């Protein structure tokens, strides 16, 4: 497809219009805020030190970034971590995983490996059995290799 300058400008304007049109909670809840809301049901999320999120400061390749969550909890039948939602705010789709813990877990700790499309924040939100939500963020720089090979 070849475009002349005028057509290119028109396309650009169209794209700009699409960008500016506010997202009205359609079928795809794919922005980070929408994902958080979908997970918490709109409840307040506390950004405190209940959740700790481990991630490398610099990832040598965005394809395999090791991450870990650890939530301060006794993990007893009446006081435990139910779920942890992991999101990446700079990926084409922010959803990464939802972890389900139980008192049988013994500790609310888990590690996995994830994909990051670029430098961005990883977000972990924990839902505790008392109905509260707690969040931690970690910024990860993704290296653009000089010699990917």
């Amino acid at each position, binding site marked *: 497809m070849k475009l002349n300058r005028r057509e290119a400008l028109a396309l650009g304007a169209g794209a700009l219009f699409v960008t500016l049109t506010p997202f009205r909670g359609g079928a795809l809840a794919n922005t980070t805020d929408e994902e958080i809301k979908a997970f918490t049901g709109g409840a307040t999320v506390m950004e405190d030190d209940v959740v700790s999120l481990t991630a490398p400061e610099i990832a040598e390749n965005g394809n395999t970034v090791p991450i870990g969550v650890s939530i301060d909890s006794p993990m007893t039948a009446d006081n435990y971590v139910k779920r942890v939602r992991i999101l990446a705010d700079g990926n084409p*789709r922010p959803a990464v*995983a939802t972890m389900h813990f139980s008192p*049988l877990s013994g500790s609310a700790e*888990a*590690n996995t490996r994830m994909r990051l499309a670029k430098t961005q924040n990883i977000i972990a939100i924990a839902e505790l059995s008392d109905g509260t939500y707690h969040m931690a963020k970690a910024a990860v720089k993704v290296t653009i290799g000089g010699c990917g090979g």
Partner: protein
Amino acid sequence: MAKSKPRVKVPKTATVGEVITIKTLISHKMESGLRKGKDGNLIPRQIINKFTAEFEGQQIFAVDIDPAISANPFLEFTMKVPGPGEFTFTWVDDDGSVYTTKSKLKIG
């Protein structure tokens, strides 16, 4: 790999009340559905979308997995040992395949 193969690292023996670490890995390309193939068309999504770890039929840990989890998905988590029994680890593929592996735990 053509067929997905799970690997599990779990102790064979433990004491009651001990918190043990379990590691699992399964071979899978985790095709995100966001990549384009050589013909310019999107490569259809095919991922492991769910992992479950059970002990004697009770859920220890489970994950709903999105395409942002890396190829050959790795998961590490813990269990507080309630007694002897059998683990069941299950992975569910988008194509409907279910991969299961079991492992026994003794008290010693």
